[in-house]
């Protein structure tokens, strides 16, 4: 218990960010019209692809003779990139359709 409390104090900045971001996340999409639900979901999906940064760090830190770490990191980088690139491209394709009809 004590160590948990210490950990909270040591990471209080991060915890503040988490709390504020929760409210920001709720606030920014509060008034989305229902036709945009799917593109918004897809766009948010691409944004959590930011996890790729973690994958890059893992990959970059792995020792070059530790094959398990290399393989895990490599897979993580591929999967993370798929999430980011695929996510943004799919969202763009969906929204392209919306734009076209407005002409």
């Amino acid at each position, binding site marked *: 218990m004590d160590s*948990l409390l210490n950990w909270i104090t040591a990471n209080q900045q991060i915890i503040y960010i988490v709390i504020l971001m929760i409210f920001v996340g709720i606030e920014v*999409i509060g008034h989305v019209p229902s*036709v945009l639900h799917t593109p918004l979901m897809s766009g948010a999906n691409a944004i959590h*692809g930011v996890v790729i940064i973690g994958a890059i760090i*893992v990959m970059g830190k792995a020792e070059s003779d530790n094959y398990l770490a290399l393989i895990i990191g490599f897979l993580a980088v591929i999967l993370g990139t798929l*999430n980011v690139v*695929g996510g943004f491209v799919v969202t763009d394709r969906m929204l392209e359709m919306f734009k076209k009809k407005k002409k």
Partner: protein
Amino acid sequence: MELNILTLCYIIASVTFIVGLKMLSNPAKARNGNLVAAAGMALAIFATIFLYEDGGEKLGNYAWIFGGIIIGSVIGTLAAKKVKMTAMPEMVSLFNGMGGACAALISAAEFNHLYQHYKGPMDIPYSSVMPVGEYITIIAGAIIGSVSFAGSVIAWGKLNGRIKDFAFKGQHLLNIFILLLVLAAAVFAYQSQFKNIMLPFLLLGFFAFLYGVMFVMPIGGADMPVVISLLNSFTGVAAATGGFLYNNKAMLTGGILVGAAGTLLTILMCKAMNRSLTNVLIGSFGGSKAGPAGQKQQGAVKEITLSDAAVVMAYANKVMIVPGYGLAVAQAQHACHELEKLLESKGVNVRYAIHPVAGRMPGHMNVLLAESDVPYEKLLEMEQANEEFATTDVVLILGANDVVNPAAKTDPASPIYGMPILDVELAKNVVVNKRSMKPGYAGIENDLFFRPKTSMLFGDAKKVLQDLVSEIKSM
């Protein structure tokens, strides 16, 4: 200096995520919002690769990093470009699963890293070398990431029909039990001696994976967009645990932002269907409830021949088309547009009535019809459409069912009671195109089909529309 630039890049990226998300919820700015967020992401990725350092050491293994990024980009772009409009939600689900798996792998790698670099005695409990906060962060990433990955793959399989709904009695209890096993494995691993740590950690991942599978299994295919949205916010949280782990604010803000926005979006989607999230997750919609609850057939349905249908539409003043999932399945959007143009050339006023949840995802019909160049002004939203039905001569329903079911208004026992519907009955004639008399996704009978104004035109939507076009042309 370089680290400061990295920090600046992360701050910019975080701002683009927030601004991008904000713009994505506005129809006029949505596309640019997506590009803004993508630009921020690219900045964050390249800044990490070139500027990141830990204790004065730069990242290595550039060949592996760039190899992975190139492979991922090529596959991701091709998959996203090639996928058919109807299969978009599946694709999103799959990409979401990739993100979840990525988060889980990061946790596994960190775990492995700590294990291999540990030099102390092997027979002391893991808890004495691992601070509880950091432990929770690592396993949270592993658990949530695995659940999200497994769930997304199942959701993908359900949407493209490879995996059937699978529900049995006591399934929710079993799910809770599996969840307890996950937590038990987490606690057990923490208490274990250092040398025995791998097995409980692997079990933890396995049970989390199993939970993801079992969690999505009983939920009906029609509710998958809601489930995907929920798993999407899970992955956001999993990404944020990575931010905790590396004290990386861009991962943290991006992840939590998506976690919060995704949760709200999930609730908004449920609201659009007038259902609660609990009802979606444990209601097993359409599976168990639809059975004996007084579903009686009200007399016989009336069929209409193709030529009769062609005649009533060609000589009508106003025709309203109500598209549904049947249209998407049959890929009939182009045939539909062709019929619309032909009728317009004969002086018929043609409009489309779009229910907000018609199809498999909100906005599905708008996207589909836009693909075949149906003009924007012709698509009426539900409220507008409901005002116009009274002056409409023929309503043509193409593979829509639950969104026009009058039970939503009249039958309090119906599972869709209270959902706003399109009041097609106000029109003079209703022509319903369906493949068969099978009920829609809610699994309930539709009274509409038995009403005197209604006539049925059975067949595949695309074929029927093409036949209608040639029939009207030859008139």
